[in-house]
């Protein structure tokens, strides 16, 4: 492959970088800047990047410059982060806070920077390259959280984000340096070989320690217990669109990268059981069950703490932050099984969560626009005035709980299957328990939306009729205050709700991820 051909394979990343530069220059030379214009520029570059990524879903994997890994796996999650960034851009257009802020072109620039970092992070087989992407994502996110001037809550959030981020990133870097010492290389494949050799020699601790250190970084990005402290404060302090990006794009890419790293590091251990039956039992190290237990405990704590803490939250984004901690626990539970099935289930549920989570944040932004506040209580009765959006939020929350007609159900089913298949019954029980708890806090939102403080009986009947027919927004016309029409948000909400319902049948998506994961383990 010639040098120019190799460069062609990193075109999606180059496109995002170009968008970033164009926006920076445009910000300098165009005197009157309108936010939606910069949004259109950002969206078009993200669109071109996505167009380059889609054909890769069925392409054969290649490694470029011995660092960049171009495969279906990377493409899936690069598409996820591009979609998450695009969603955030569109949500920002409809965000009523800080309407005349000068920082808004910078929002797009930083968002594209975060996207670029995430794309690099998931599409590499080189640990330093991965760290570079990780830091680009983190640094952009720190600034995104407080992109608006004189926003004290945002400043506090960003400060906490930076301090925790610097700590866990440093710990992760230490883990990377230990792996370099172990394998004499930053290449994940070579480190995997060294890990097998070390484990075969019985030096379990030499592998366990750097793995756990590495997990600090990923745990932080995915907001897993005990690295979750920042996320409620940060989601609370920042704006809903940015919180949406942190909860979906950033989190899912971290999950995908974690799976790639674990699959490469323990390739010998994971494949050993399946392929090498004769020597497999002897080769399988006792370290894998240890690591499994560590991860399972982390997952259980995240699920329980997230669900329990969410019960008492009054602030919508804070509630969603705890819900997101709990979901990170669900994802880790399947990853903890350290096998192809577990990885596959976690990635599938990660994709489902990205859809449902983004949808929920869009719905929250929609209702915050109507009420002008971010509290759960401020949703009071809004479901009757906006029956369609209210119904959409109910569907999305049902998805987050894991109720049947949604993607959440089929996704959680696969998670449970993967966990039970490895004999971790207690973990499966905690997963069910956490889902039950999540039903309580989700139902609280539904109750406030629909059951408390009905409008007059006539209006309620009319709205109920409108909900039942599902055809018109008749409820809007009767609202006492003229609602703000936010066509883009409604469109987004419709897309995510439809996707949540359609993904009940996960098989088409599963075919895609299964191939991607197998390719990951047997590279």
């Amino acid at each position, binding site marked *: 492959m010639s*040098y120019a051909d190799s460069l062609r394979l990193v075109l999606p990343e180059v496109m995002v970088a170009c968008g970033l530069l164009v926006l920076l220059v445009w910000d300098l030379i165009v005197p009157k800047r309108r936010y939606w214009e910069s949004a259109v520029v950002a969206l078009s570059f993200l669109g071109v990047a996505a167009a380059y990524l889609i054909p890769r879903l069925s392409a054969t994997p290649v490694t470029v410059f011995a660092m960049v890994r171009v495969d279906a796996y990377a493409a899936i999650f690069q598409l996820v982060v591009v979609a998450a960034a695009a969603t955030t851009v569109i949500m920002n257009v409809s965000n009523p806070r800080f309407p005349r802020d000068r920082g808004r072109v910078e929002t797009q620039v930083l968002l594209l920077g975060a996207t670029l970092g995430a794309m690099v992070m998931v599409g590499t087989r080189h640990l330093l390259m991965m760290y570079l992407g990780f830091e680009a994502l983190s640094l952009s996110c720190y600034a995104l959280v407080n992109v608006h001037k*004189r926003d004290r809550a945002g400043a506090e959030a960003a400060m906490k984000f930076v301090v925790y981020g610097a700590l866990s990133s440093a710990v992760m870097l230490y883990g990377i340096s230990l792996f370099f010492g172990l394998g004499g290389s930053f290449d994940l494949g070579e480190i995997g070989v060294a890990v097998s050799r070390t484990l075969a020699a019985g030096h379990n601790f030499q592998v366990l320690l750097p793995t756990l250190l590495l997990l600090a970084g990923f745990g932080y990005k995915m907001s897993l217990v005990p690295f979750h402290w920042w996320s409620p404060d940060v989601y609370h302090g920042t704006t809903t669109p940015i919180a949406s990006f942190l909860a979906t794009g950033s989190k899912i890419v971290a999950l995908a990268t974690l799976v790639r790293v674990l699959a490469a590091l323990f390739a010998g251990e994971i494949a050993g059981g399946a392929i090498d039956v004769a020597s497999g039992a002897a080769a399988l190290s006792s370290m894998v069950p240890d690591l499994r237990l560590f991860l399972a405990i982390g997952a259980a704590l995240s699920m329980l703490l997230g669900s329990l803490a969410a019960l008492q939250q009054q602030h919508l984004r804070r509630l969603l932050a705890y819900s997101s901690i709990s979901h990170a626990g669900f994802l880790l539970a399947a990853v903890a099984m350290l096998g192809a099935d577990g990885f596959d289930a976690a990635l599938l549920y990660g994709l489902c969560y990205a859809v449902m989570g983004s949808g929920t944040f869009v719905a929250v932004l929609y209702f915050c626009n109507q009420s002008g506040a971010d509290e759960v209580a401020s949703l009071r009765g809004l479901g009757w005035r906006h029956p369609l959006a209210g119904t959409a939020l109910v569907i999305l929350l049902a998805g987050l709980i894991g109720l049947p007609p949604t993607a959440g159900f089929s996704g959680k089913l696969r998670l449970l299957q993967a966990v039970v298949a490895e004999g971790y019954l207690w973990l499966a029980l905690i997963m069910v328990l956490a889902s039950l708890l999540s039903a309580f806090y989700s139902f609280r939102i539904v109750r406030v939306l629909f059951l408390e403080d009905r409008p007059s009986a006539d209006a309620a009947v009319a709205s109920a009729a409108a909900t039942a027919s599902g055809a018109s927004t008749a409820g809007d016309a009767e609202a006492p205050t003229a609602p703000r029409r936010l066509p883009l948000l409604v469109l987004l909400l419709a897309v995510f709700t439809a996707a949540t319902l359609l993904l009940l049948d996960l098989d088409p998506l599963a075919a895609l991820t299964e191939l991607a994961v197998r390719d990951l383990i047997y590279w």
Partner: protein
Amino acid sequence: MFFDYANVFVFALGGAVLVFGGMWLGSLIRPKREGEAGLEPYECGEKPIGSAWFRFDIRYYTVALVYLLFAVEIAFLFPWARVLKEALADDAIGGLALVEGVVFILVLAVGLAYVWRKGDLDWVRGISHTPDDPEEG
């Protein structure tokens, strides 16, 4: 074998000549003003003695970042310049080597243009009152 270390000594000597020679040259042409401020260790005007718990001017960080822009540029351009000639002769890479270097410099130039245009290169900005920042200051 130890003679190879002569390189190190020559290098160190060259460094010393550059530093002290520069200072000597500067002393020839700069104006001489005696005074308290000129004798302080930090030319940036920070107090050298006292508690470290005070607020640093945010502009130090901006300037440090802009400095980093150039420091990193040099660090990356040295190896690039070193192999450029061979890369240009290589059929597989060819002119791309030059293009890549130029793209790299252009990206950094955008960064420089950005801080320049936004006024972050001016140390004395005063308290900036832009029309849409009525509350600032």
